[in-house]
């Protein structure tokens, strides 16, 4: 078994238990989209784009009093260590679903009856926590599109490695560790919109992991705010 935390309490990439990997967000990267964003979270490199609200085709899918949301999370063939065939896997389909539910929590869908909002996520390079990084990118893209939303959403995982609760798991910590808990969070509403976990957690560890993930999310929220402010309110020339 690989030792994930050394005697000084440092992880393989030199982080302490409560440190995030570097996070970088850029808003408005896809010209054709109504809203878009790019995120680098650790080695994750992810693009999210929003099209709509727009007309629903075929018509029988429409809902008379609110908009429908469709989400597609997809990984590029070159995004993983071994080439991933382009057709969607069961994992990608499930993540698409949990991401869609996470964003339905904040969207004001009643404002756009009989329409559809399409959200596309492409993972160009994957690392641990790609669904969390995806929801952050999605929320930036949704805000950029100007679709009414009650709050922004940020995502960050916590987990357990070498018996310790740690923040923001990398690929290897996710694979070799004892537990993983992706959490997406709405900072102003103080509510959780996405939660999954696997591994064995005591009740105390579970609480600690959740607290830690929320703390990490609040830090990512600052990065997200800065990126949106940069795009919309930056006045000086580069």
């Amino acid at each position, binding site marked *: 078994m690989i030792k994930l935390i050394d005697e000084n309490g440092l992880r393989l990439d030199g982080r302490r238990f409560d440190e995030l990997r570097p996070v970088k967000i850029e808003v408005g990267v*896809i010209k*054709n989209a109504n809203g878009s964003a790019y995120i680098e979270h650790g080695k994750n490199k992810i693009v999210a784009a929003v*099209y*709509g609200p*727009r007309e629903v085709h075929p018509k029988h899918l429409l809902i008379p009093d609110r908009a429908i949301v469709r989400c597609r999370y997809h990984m*590029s*063939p*070159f*995004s993983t260590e071994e080439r991933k065939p382009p057709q969607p896997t069961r994992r990608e389909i499930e993540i698409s679903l949990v991401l869609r539910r996470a964003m339905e929590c904040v969207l004001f869908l009643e404002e756009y009856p009989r329409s559809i909002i399409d959200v596309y996520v*492409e993972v160009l390079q994957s690392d641990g926590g790609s669904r969390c990084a995806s929801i952050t990118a999605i929320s930036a893209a949704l805000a950029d599109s100007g679709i009414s939303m009650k709050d922004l959403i940020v995502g960050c995982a916590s987990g357990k490695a070498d018996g310790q609760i740690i923040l923001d798991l990398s690929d290897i910590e996710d694979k070799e560790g004892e537990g993983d808990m992706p959490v997406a969070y709405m900072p102003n509403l103080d509510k959780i919109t996405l939660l999954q976990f696997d591994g064995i957690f005591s009740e105390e560890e579970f609480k600690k992991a959740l607290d830690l993930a929320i703390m990490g999310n609040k830090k990512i929220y600052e990065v997200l705010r800065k990126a949106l402010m940069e795009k919309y309110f930056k006045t000086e020339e580069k």
Partner: protein
Amino acid sequence: MSFKRSSIIENLRKTQMLDLLSKQKRLDGRALNEYRPITIRLNPIQKANGSAEVSIGDTKVIAGVKVETGEPFPDTPQQGLLIVNAEFLPLSSAMIEPGPPDEDSIEVSRVVDRGIRESQMLNLKELVIEPGKLVYCVFVDIDILNIDGNLFDAAFIAAVLSIATAKYDKKIVNEGKEEITKTPLPLRLIPVSVTSITIGDNILLDPTEEEDSVHDSRMTITFDEEGHLCAGQKGGSVGLSVEQLFKIVDLSKPKAEEIRALIKKVISNAYP
């Protein structure tokens, strides 16, 4: 924002375009044989063996090369495999729907594939481990990120750059011991494709989506380093005269040299 819009070109736009072209003008102020700025980012994907992001104006694509091992095709037991696959990501345009590759993305894949294969950019014979049994497979995957015309050339430049800069784990048996070395792919030359469209009597290089939507015909020609024509693809539903075709070749050839110089400069800056 409407799906119906996809097949409809504003009649106004076509009239206006012809009016502009009669004065040898394009909407973005370019000359008819001028490309939009080409920007290149080498190796954005560390997990790929080689990768490149290429933008031509607002068209943006990213290509990644993965080198794996596998069985050769039965008809070419003495050659490694080259597989090119382009995907129009649904995030690239309001007109693209998720789903298996449609005819447009397959056309891009195949035009890029032919350009690379027929120019003999790679010496595939050097990618054999055990003839007929085990060879290296070079997968070139191209993501179309934003569509604004001329996907062929953007995809081609991205594919060429990611192949030219890729390094793969080559197994070498040295005195009975197996060693793995990071090795560049067996490169012979840098091919370049140039795409043009005709609208009436006018020939426009590097069309935008707006221009492409009113084209009569489209032509993509790939040139090797000696200026030979090594692959071509005509598109569009209007015929092309022989005279026009020769004119296109004359316009495309010097442009291919310009683009090749750019590609080589990018490579030599990154790997001096």
